[in-house]
């Protein structure tokens, strides 16, 4: 599903985020990425998502080489990937419902189906009662769950989640991972970057550990 060959990433400004990362994630896998702050976890996910270009190396996703994807095809690929951003990336002047609906709207889903699926998804993350709130009127954990809902609502082939439980209490964290495991059981590939020791102890069978931009285990 996702293959990276000798990928390196140097940001302009001089910071090296990844060095020679080779990685293979098969379809239907559930993978954790860990490592200390600044190790390159987010960068790795962004490169898989195609929102940061690698400085060196090749990435093949869903059988396609990122370097050969035209800019008009990129949106199509992104619709097949659900990304939970570490900083949420919610549109502040749209409601929770609209933010989640956006992921379906861009695909041309019918309004009725959007409504059904968004409301169902919001209830999975326990936010039915916040559907008409603006993101800035939500608590940190609520915002994070909106971001999760938006990533899952389109039933993507791949889920990339960057620290999706950083603002959630332990109970909600476990529920969230259970949600990911459920979609994973239905065939979705899931990659979760996390610091959460509790989660790793509980679920972390397959884990990639990053340290200073290198895979160490």
């Amino acid at each position, binding site marked *: 599903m996702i293959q990276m060959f000798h990928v390196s990433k140097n940001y302009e400004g001089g910071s090296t985020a990844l060095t020679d990362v080779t990685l293979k994630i098969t379809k239907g896998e559930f993978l954790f990425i860990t490592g200390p702050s600044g190790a390159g976890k987010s960068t790795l996910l962004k490169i898989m998502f195609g929102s940061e270009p690698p400085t060196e190396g090749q990435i093949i996703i869903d059988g396609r080489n990122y370097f050969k994807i035209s800019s008009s095809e990129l*949106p199509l*690929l*992104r*619709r097949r990937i659900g990304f939970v951003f570490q900083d949420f990336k919610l549109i502040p002047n749209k409601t929770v419902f609209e933010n989640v609906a*956006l992921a379906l*709207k*861009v695909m*041309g*889903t019918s309004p009725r189906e959007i409504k059904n699926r968004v409301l169902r998804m919001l209830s999975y993350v326990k936010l039915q009662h916040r559907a008409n709130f603006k993101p800035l009127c939500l608590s940190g954990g609520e915002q994070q769950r909106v971001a999760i809902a938006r990533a899952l609502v389109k039933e993507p082939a791949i889920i990339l989640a960057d620290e999706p439980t950083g603002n959630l209490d332990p109970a909600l964290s476990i529920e969230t991972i259970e949600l990911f495991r459920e979609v994973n059981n239905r065939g979705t590939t899931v990659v979760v970057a996390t610091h959460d020791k509790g989660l790793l102890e509980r679920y972390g069978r397959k884990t990639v550990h990053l340290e200073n931009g290198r895979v160490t285990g």
Partner: protein
Amino acid sequence: MGGSSNLLYIVTDALRSLRENSVTTALTAVTLGVSLSIFSVFIFVFVNLNAAINSWGDRTQIVAYIKDGSEAPEKIREAVLSIPGVTSAEFVSKERALTELKNELKGHEMVLEGVDSNPLPASVEIKVGGLYKNPGAVSTVVARLKQMGWAEDVQFNREWIEKISGLLGFIELAAVFMGFFLAAATVFIISNTIRLAVYARKDEIEIMRLVGASDRFIKVPFFIEGVVQGFAGGVIALLITGAGRYLVAAKVPPYFNFIVQTPFPVPVIAVALIAAGVLMGVAGSLISMARFLKA
């Protein structure tokens, strides 16, 4: 992609977003309207002024005095009109010349008291067209007239002709300068205003792209917003110019009426202003946001 229902959806959405950004949208529309109306007031005044000066410059430019006992007036008129450049020729008989002189001398009529027979010659008053485009035409016409057998004397006010054509040329030049400057200023102000308004939403655009929106999906709302802003701006410009004209027209001295004339039919003006507004609104929106799509 869901085709037309999808488009309908996008449009509905765009209108909602318009409501959400209503303050900025309204202020942008007013900016557009104000800028456009400055430009259109300038155009109107210029067109009117130009027309007025043109008709003012369109006075008799050459007078050819006719030897007593020359050919029939009609023959003479025809001969004059056949000279290239001449647009009008009016025959003035000896009698009319005297009457006109008496009129001109109003208050000094006493000087004519001793005069019995009519000493004044008949004449043809000639206008040359396209004065501004071809100020040399007058001299050519004069030369041709002098060759005519019936012509006793040909008079023309070289100085005045030069003044008029100089003035017309200058006004046209100044208007072109001013017009270009105002047009550039209008475009600049509007595009900068829209740029700033779009800039405030760059995060929103960025997020839409990350969620997999096509460029079209992102552009449509901005396009619609541009249309609405531009339309509103055009209407505002129309109202401002209309109101200005109405306020000023009542006070204008009658002989100066030409300056507040509507140089084009009102529907044409309305359509032109609104079209200009929509064009600028759309172009401004799309160009401003294109920067964020490329990144």
